[in-house]
């Protein structure tokens, strides 16, 4: 709203020139964003009301695709799995990264600590496909290094990816392995931002480390935690590469996720309209998560 008066106000020639130059600076990214970020949303919304197999033109079918969303067993299973996946990965990687970051900041502020931080960060830079490939080989039921180790300890081999109960947690473990370092770095920066006099005051007050963590560090890190949880939920909601490469959705449909079914519906079943409807719903869910989070965030602040 604040911009409306400035449009109506008569611009001086200099300002107009500056505005034009400014528009010139904005234009390249604007054009690209319009093409690759904005237009596709509208096209996607349009496709979601059609039957479309890409080979022949889309046929308008109204709300048919949306009506069928609620009765689709495969989609329900995928949603269910995705929620489980989020419930496994997000708390695990958040808590792990928080504890490690705070511990290193409190007790390992030396070269060893910074070396540990560098090492824990390394999985972040491994591509998901390479991670999936390496872990797949490590998870092999016969002869995989993890099972070799379990056998060495005297345990039975575990079929990590081939058993329904294990498959999803095994995929999630790779995500946690890869994600913890990333969030740890953000948390660490947050802890370092805690004014040192606050902490020193607490130390003088004789607060134990657990008390300091609970009553001082944690509340200060709250905004970062909200952000990390939101990022984590949104990221995990879209898990694709790991599932595609590690299990292909199997065994059965035990690792079908929302992103994976969108791919399946579209590129395998050639049902691009229906897949678009699912994608639009995914967008709505993510917007909802965001809204709820920001409302929550504002309230607490």
């Amino acid at each position, binding site marked *: 709203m604040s*911009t409306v008066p400035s449009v109506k106000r008569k611009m001086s020639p200099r300002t107009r020139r500056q505005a034009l130059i400014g528009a010139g600076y904005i234009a*390249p990214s604007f054009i690209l964003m319009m093409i690759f970020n904005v237009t596709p949303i509208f096209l*996607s919304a349009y496709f979601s009301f059609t039957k479309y197999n890409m080979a022949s033109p889309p046929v308008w079918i109204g709300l048919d695709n949306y009506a069928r969303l609620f009765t689709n067993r495969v989609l329900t299973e995928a949603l269910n799995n995705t929620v489980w996946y989020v419930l496994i990965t997000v708390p695990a990687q958040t808590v792990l990264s928080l504890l490690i970051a705070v511990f*290193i900041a409190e007790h390992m502020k030396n070269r060893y600590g910074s070396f540990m931080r560098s090492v824990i960060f390394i999985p972040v830079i*491994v*591509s998901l496909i*390479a991670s999936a490939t390496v872990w797949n080989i490590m998870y092999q039921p016969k002869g995989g290094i993890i099972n070799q180790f379990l056998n060495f300890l005297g345990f039975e081999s575990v079929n990590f990816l081939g058993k329904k109960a294990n498959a999803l947690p095994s995929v999630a473990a790779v995500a946690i392995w890869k994600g913890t370092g990333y969030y740890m770095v953000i948390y660490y*920066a947050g802890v370092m931002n805690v004014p040192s006099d606050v902490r020193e005051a607490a130390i003088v007050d004789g607060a134990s480390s657990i008390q300091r963590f609970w009553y001082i560090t944690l509340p200060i890190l709250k905004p970062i935690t909200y952000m990390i949880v939101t990022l984590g939920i949104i990221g995990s909601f879209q898990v694709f590469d790991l599932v595609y490469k590690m299990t292909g959705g199997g065994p059965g449909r035990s690792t079908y996720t929302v992103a994976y079914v969108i791919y399946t519906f579209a590129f395998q079943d050639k049902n691009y309209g229906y897949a678009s409807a699912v994608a639009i719903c995914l967008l709505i869910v*993510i917007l909802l998560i965001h809204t709820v989070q920001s409302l929550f965030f504002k309230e607490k602040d």
Partner: protein
Amino acid sequence: MKKKAFSPWVILGIVLVTLFAVLCVLPLIYMVAVSFTDSETLYIKLKDLRPSLYNYWYAIVKRDFGTALKNSIITVVGSCLLVDAASAMAAYGFEKKPVPGKEALFQGYLATMMIPGQVVLIPMFVMINRAGLTNTYAALILPMVGAFGIFLMRQFMVAVPNELLEAAEIDGCGELRRFVTIVIPLVQPALITLTIFTFNAAWNNFLWPLIINTRSEMRVLPVTMSTLASNSTTNYGMVMAGATLTFLFPFILYIFLQKQFVEGIALGGVKG
């Protein structure tokens, strides 16, 4: 000052952190170790390890990893240059120029950051295909420009003093020269951060290149990696050599630019 805390709990903590760090790199050490064996079983004994680059040679020459590496490098460099240039320019326009309606547009940009990739995948495939841009670098590079980079750069653009720009203008320094010689050096740390983010995103991009660049001479590393892994399910040495190659470039970059990597993410995270 209290005694330097070496309570048993702290020692336990240090051990646990160390253990976690070991768990983080163990899979990668294993990956490199297997890439140097030619055994097709997973029971790797020390005697199977040999300093032979056969698996690497085979992956690069026979399995198109050389081509994929070239494509990945071109894509990544192109993406970084484009994203850096477009984002810095846009951020400068948004922050320093009196463009009408810019704040509303900026809010709109921020909203696009929440769009999941799967939503735009199908229409983008249709559009790129219609435009005849499949199997080109442009198809991989152009969509990399996004709101995140502009947002990040704008955070830093605020700190560029207006007085400096005005003084330069009075000295007769042209518009473009001011941008290149004054603004860019001042926001350089942010550009490095953005480069790292873009590098990571472009290097690891999988689903989009998988469906849009179908010809083998246009495939990027993760796609070639994926094909290799499903085509040779039992030749673990070669598959691991491929994975190592995929990992190598970001890793080298990480070693040299470690500080920027970590600071960049912390910054992008804390501010974003």
